[in-house]
């Protein structure tokens, strides 16, 4: 028993890009072997999770409109199991961060991420969310949301086409499929964000 190659219906494995990353994850997970019972349970769970990724309706700018298009008649992401977009972060499984994150929005974004229940995933949609995009030289733009939250999938574009967004979501599905729920998850926050520069008198009034 081992963690298997992720399979997306009707799309061959080799047609996806960036398979090395997945193979690396699979290799790490397969070190030391996988118990048959636990492995089967994991497979069932991963099947459930990967086919039911509900995203938070979180859109700050242009990419959000394309994200709406993906949900509508022509592209219809409901076909793949992204059926419901939840407005409450508690019930969502992933944030599609569609749009620029500014300095003022950054703590809000972080809070939304913290409010989500595990397992949670982040997709950075568009140039702004990835690196700051065209507004990189601004005084008020976060240069990529990776500074704030750990990102699972990046979808480049300005804004990415709906097909690209679907592809990115499928990549996330593949990533979810090579996870272990029992016996150590492979997903960790890369660098914990410690808030140090809170002013001393902050929150004083509230107590």
């Amino acid at each position, binding site marked *: 028993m081992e963690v298997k190659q992720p399979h997306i219906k009707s799309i061959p494995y080799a047609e996806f890009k960036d398979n090395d990353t997945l193979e690396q994850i699979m290799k790490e997970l397969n070190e030391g072997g996988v118990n048959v019972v636990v492995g089967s349970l994991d497979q069932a769970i991963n099947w459930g999770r990967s086919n039911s990724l509900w995203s938070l309706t979180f859109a*700050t700018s242009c990419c959000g409109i394309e994200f709406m298009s993906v949900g509508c008649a022509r592209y219809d992401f409901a076909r793949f199991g992204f059926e419901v977009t939840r407005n409450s972060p508690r019930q969502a499984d992933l944030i599609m961060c569609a749009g620029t994150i*500014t300095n003022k929005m950054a703590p809000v974004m972080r809070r939304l991420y913290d409010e989500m229940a595990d397992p949670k995933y982040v997709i950075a949609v568009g140039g702004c969310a990835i690196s700051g995009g065209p507004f990189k*030289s601004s005084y008020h733009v976060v240069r990529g949301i990776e500074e704030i939250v750990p990102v699972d999938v990046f979808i480049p574009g300005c804004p990415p086409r709906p097909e690209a967004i679907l592809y990115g979501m499928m990549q996330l599905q593949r990533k979810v499929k090579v996870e272990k729920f029992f016996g150590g998850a492979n997903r960790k926050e890369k660098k914990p964000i410690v808030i140090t*520069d809170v002013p001393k008198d902050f929150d004083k009034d509230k107590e």
Partner: protein
Amino acid sequence: MKLNNIVLNANDFANEMAKLRNEKHFDFLVTIVGEDFGEEGFGCIYILENTQTYERISVKVVAADRNNPFLPSVTHLWKAADLMEREVYDFFGIKFVGHPDMRRLYLRSDFKGYPLRKDYDMDPEKNKPNMFDDPEPDYTLQYSLDKDGNLVENRHKLFGEDDYVVNIGPQHPATHGVLRLQTILDGEVIRKIYPHLGYIHRGVEKISEGYTYPQTLAFTDRLDYLSATMNRHALVGVIEEAMEVELTDRIKYIRTIMDELQRLNSHLLFYSCCAQDVGALTAFIYGMRDREQVINVMEETTGGRLIQNYYRIGGCQADIDPNFVQNVKKLCAYMKPMFKEYQDVFTGNVIMENRFKNVGVLSREDAISYGCTGGTGRATGWKNDVRKHHSYGVYDKIDFKEITYENGDSYDRYMVRMKEMEQSVHIMETLIDNIPEGDFYIKQKPIIKVPEGQWYFSCEGSRGEIGVFLDSKGDKSPYRLKFRPMGLPLVSALDTMLKGEKIADLIAVGASLDYVIPDIDR
């Protein structure tokens, strides 16, 4: 238009402005442009319009003291000045004496410095985001002058002890982005709304000052992404006017058609979002389905779905697609029966009428005072279509109706847009067969320099007047570039429209106003 500023002294500024407003009928404050005049000090340029003759003038006033600049407020004359002055204060630190609510508008309250001043350091390392919540003050500041001419600061409380305050936004499904409305509720009834902006403030105006003119073009499409071409038309227009570029008729025709396609696109999304916000999800999908048809047509020529990047200084990026004419005709034929379907699915619905009629009423006077242009203004009976009154492109050559309604409620705002879609189709049908031959691009110098001076040029965007103010010192990059956001007046009018209405109406009114937040925040 090239601005010939009436320069006023800060001391008799308030009186002169009152005269302009009350005696000469300059009752529409188009925009306030804050500017760092260098040696002269910080100042503002007010662009005013006479709503009877559509004449425009500009007024310049400078606060002499660079260290502690202040100017008299004009909020008592134009309600629009409320948020505009806060914007100037936020970016330049000019304090407006007599303004009731002098807080920061776009930036966090712990932001240090004033970013649009020329001496502000934009270094990314020095502008890292704070990861803790904004320590917002719960009071407003009002400045007044004492006998000796010194600034005195008064504090007013924002909330009472028992107020039930709900933050609608910044992440909320119905605010169309990241607008935050701090709402005081009394049960379901709204008592007061404080808008908080800036959650998507990207500093476009400041970045533009460091870029060359062709580089600045890229930002316009990303301001109000639903009127991408109109935004760009405004910026390209102001630069071309300043450089005195003579455009061929072909360019003008193409641009006009593209603008109308974009308007159709945007209004379809408006229809969809209106339906979605009041819970009719099927109507939402119908609107989005037809929007894809419009996008198809645009995409074949421009290559972009949402963001077109099509216009450039001196013309367009490329000639129109060979199939363009045919596709537009097909689209027009396709759209006409669809308007009937929208009528059946959503507009004629009794629940929709109950939700929209007599909700969020804005009077004509308020619309003008707040500067609510576009569909919102026209729903009150104020004729403010830039295409008619400050014509550009080939709008002066074609016959189209300026849609106006009387009541100024959500339903009228909605109907204005629905009728405008039909007008857009009409305009396209008139133009599409007559696109003249000619160049699609007039060759410009490799380095574009704009002669010294100040210009203002506006276009009719999807939700109001999108204007661009350009101050050039003769360099290859603008000295000051300022966009007049279409949505800012709409947001400032929210409180007036919604006092005493229900929370559900906030959503319905927000949907009918159709603001796009990145356009407000820039």
